[in-house]
């Protein structure tokens, strides 16, 4: 068995997927170069107002209620990708028949998904979930399913052997709906005209024609059409392997300045992305947001003036025949052009699939790193990853939920700054600050704890700890026979007094082979300040000179 998913009025569907709020409004899509833009698609409400494909944009603008949107190849390609994702979530054998039509082989799906009507309903629901109003048809052969999907709205299931009966009511135009351009369109028009002259206006009439007579008049093409009309043509699908590219984009008519409306659009894009990823049973670990900023348009004009052809990635410029000044100017423009593209990448510690969490993370990131110019185009892509398999242990202590934790960490980063939050990683060095911060991951923390011998754990635990001053405090030290006897610290009054006890010096040095060489003598000492006694680490910098209090033993 085969199924077909067909999106009627694809250009309008793509626009509605990007702007669902236009669904109840009359909508027309125009295309072409100004001022010769023409309507290429209209929805039912627009038809009611008199709008029709072929009208000029100027004519359409006379109707104030009509919402006019330019045709967007970005939206159409992402809608087509969503359609493919929808089909591939049901069957691995999928044929990409047209941008609005996908055929899929349902052999063997019965045991997994149930009866044919159930499968058709599931496909329809999945497509609706992806923001697509689709016609779904299932039949014993792919062409019958395709004709039914193009001819009947909603869900159609044709039992085996009843194709001719079910398809009979469809008009003959259905047979030529994929002949849209060039010679194919002319041929289709000729055949349609011929059939119309014969009084053949639906598939039942075409199917009833005698084969020999039809072959004499229309040749093999006529016989092929008749087989189609009877639902008797059988063929194998040409399967495609859809690349795992998850990208959604939206081009804006008016630039966005504030982050709030941007968040609104981002939410929509993220929901679409997440729905697509979910349909392929995937998550993502990396989100890339690319914003095109508004001064790019001016640069393009300047490019035209300079007369240098430019590619979108800025790498394939042709420089032939240009003067040195023009080349220099172009180089400067290219630099500016790169600057007008603003990109942010969210690297997640674990695969996630939650549009709300992604939106919050992007909002926090954009709050911390604002784009700095009005936005004219938003592009969002997700790097697919296998969803994480979490097996909660019954006897493991609770740990933070990864999504919640990521949001919390992003918020705290917004408060204390980057590189100020995370887990500590010690470096293999004797350097006094030999550590670095790395991302705190709850999943790593969820590993089973290492069981220690209680006695040894206790022995390890009660260790005198050092509290560091960052940066170390400069100190004035009185020396006697090279030994510190008194210490004052101008920036911290508490750290001063007579040296009561001392141990040292301990000499450390390192990185002498690099620019940041260090060499120091360390003293541990007890200070008496009035009645109070405190313990400190005193450091003498042997390269730069000077004494510093590095920390307090507490």
């Amino acid at each position, binding site marked *: 068995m085969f199924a077909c998913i067909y999106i009627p009025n694809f250009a309008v569907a793509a626009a509605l997927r990007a702007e669902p709020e236009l669904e109840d409004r009359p909508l027309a899509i125009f295309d072409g170069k100004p001022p010769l833009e023409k309507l290429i698609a209209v929805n039912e409400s627009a038809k009611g107002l008199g709008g029709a494909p072929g009208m000029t944009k100027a004519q359409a603008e006379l109707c104030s209620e009509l919402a006019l949107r330019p045709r967007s190849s970005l939206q159409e390609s992402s809608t087509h990708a969503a359609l493919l994702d929808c089909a591939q979530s049901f069957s691995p054998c999928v044929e990409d028949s047209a941008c609005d039509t996908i055929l899929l082989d349902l052999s063997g799906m019965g045991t997994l998904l149930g009866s044919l009507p159930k499968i058709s309903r599931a496909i329809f629901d999945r497509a609706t979930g992806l923001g697509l109003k689709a016609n779904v048809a299932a039949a014993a052969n792919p062409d019958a399913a395709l004709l039914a999907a193009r001819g009947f709205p909603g869900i159609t299931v044709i039992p085996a052997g009843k194709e001719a009966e079910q398809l009979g009511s469809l008009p003959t135009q259905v047979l030529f709906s994929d002949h849209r351009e060039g010679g194919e369109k002319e041929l289709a028009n000729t055949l349609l005209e011929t059939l119309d002259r014969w009084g053949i206006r639906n598939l039942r009439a075409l199917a009833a024609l005698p084969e020999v007579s039809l072959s004499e008049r229309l040749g093999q093409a006529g016989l092929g059409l008749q087989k189609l009309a009877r639902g008797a043509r059988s063929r194998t699908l040409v399967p495609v392997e859809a690349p795992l590219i998850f990208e959604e984009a939206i081009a804006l008519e008016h630039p966005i300045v504030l982050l709030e409306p941007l968040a609104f659009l981002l939410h929509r894009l993220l929901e679409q992305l997440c729905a697509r990823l979910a349909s392929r049973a995937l998550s993502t670990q990396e989100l890339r947001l690319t914003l095109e900023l508004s001064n790019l348009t001016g640069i393009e004009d300047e490019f035209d003036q300079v007369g240098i052809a430019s590619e979108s990635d800025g790498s394939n410029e042709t420089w032939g025949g240009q003067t040195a000044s023009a080349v220099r100017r172009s180089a400067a423009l290219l630099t500016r052009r790169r600057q007008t593209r603003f990109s942010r990448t969210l690297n997640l510690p674990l695969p996630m699939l939650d549009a709300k969490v992604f939106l919050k993370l992007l909002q926090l990131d954009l709050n911390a790193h604002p784009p700095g110019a009005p936005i004219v185009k938003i592009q969002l892509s997700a790097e697919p990853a296998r969803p994480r398999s979490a097996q909660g242990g019954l006897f493991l202590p609770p740990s933070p939920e990864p999504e919640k934790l990521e949001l919390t960490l992003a918020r705290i980063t917004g408060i204390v*700054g980057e*590189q100020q939050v995370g887990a500590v990683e010690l470096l293999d060095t004797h350097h006094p600050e030999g550590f670095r911060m790395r991302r705190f991951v709850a999943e790593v923390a969820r590993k089973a704890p290492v069981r220690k011998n209680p006695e040894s754990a206790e022995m390890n635990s009660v260790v*005198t700890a050092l509290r560091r001053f960052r940066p170390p405090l400069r100190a004035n030290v009185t020396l006697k026979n090279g030994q510190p006897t008194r210490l004052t610290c101008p920036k911290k009054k508490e750290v001063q007094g007579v040296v009561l*006890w001392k141990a040292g010096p301990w000499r450390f040095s390192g990185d002498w082979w690099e620019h940041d060489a260090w060499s120091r003598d360390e003293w541990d000492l007890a200070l008496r300040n009035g009645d109070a006694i405190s313990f400190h680490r005193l450091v003498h910098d042997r390269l730069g000179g000077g004494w510093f209090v590095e920390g307090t033993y507490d």
Partner: protein
Amino acid sequence: MSSAVISTSAALGRPFLFDVDAEPEAGLKAPGGTAPQACPERSRRGCPLEPSSPEHRRDLLSCTLNIPQSKLPPASIAPASRLEIRSTPEMISSGIPAIDILTGGLPRGCLTEICGPVSSGRTTVLLATLAAATGRGECCALIDASDALDPDSLAAAGVDLDRLLWVRCNEESPRRRRDPEKCAAPKNTAPAATPSGGKGGPEQSACDFDGKGWVKNESRRSERRLEQVLRATDLLLESGGFGLIILDLADVPPLAARRIPLTTWFRFRRAVEHKPTILLAIAQQPIAGSCSSLLLQLAVAKRRQNAARGAGRGSDLARQRTPEEGTMHCEGDCESIETAHMHLLSGLEMHVELIRSRLDRKPARCVTFETKTAWAG
């Protein structure tokens, strides 16, 4: 026979009605075991109300307070017997047996305060608690107001570094720090914050001390740090999933720490109340008031004498070393003793006093425990 006791809430200025029917033993009785007398007005009117009905209680209340019923607050009065009874919190080991014996451990779902002056062992207790919590497999968070944590000490105390989230508060807002020309480099890597030769020393970005002005500046910095601490704590408490959250305010001046409103501590207490989280605050002086369920006061014990004796015992070994390998000297009112470096901080006696505990009515007790240096082996 039913009776009622009237009490007044000091905080709200509203009367509370204690339901005696529900818990007879909680009600006040006359000295001879007799129940309080019935409301004379009600007896006079022959009130037909059921003794346990809300109307009866309002009637009783109006009689006792001599206030007309219309002036009594409406149904906002909740019988005390129906108030939620706080369950005894689960006590978790602090990682130091002496403290566990003293307090029974640290209570989950409560705020615990550890106070003490500089070098009194607050951070040592903190690290021991962290080591115990991470050893149990719990995730911990340390909100470090002064960015004073020493990772080497963490590792020496046996803390599982993968399970510890370290929030390093600082004096600058993130926006200001992002400007690379105006601000110092981030302190995530070691070379940026170390005293290395010929680079002007580590204090280049700090302001010079100029009397009164510097003090004002310090106050502002403390405020910024405290703001970051409180906001980060709020977020972590809301996030959940952490077994131990530590607010390290040990280097925050007591005056600045006391500026934290009491309502903030109440909020924290409420936020942590029904969670399996220990909220631990380290400060120089008690700051959370009655919000803390457990308050420990640390002090430097008279341990130098012991340490000195220990140092004397090790002097034979130390004398064989050259001065640059490490010697110990005593000056001032102490006799000069030479010993190994490890003896300076070994055998420090930390004195812990239990000031307040939710579980004990008169908890004043104390213990002493010893510490050792990380390099003592």
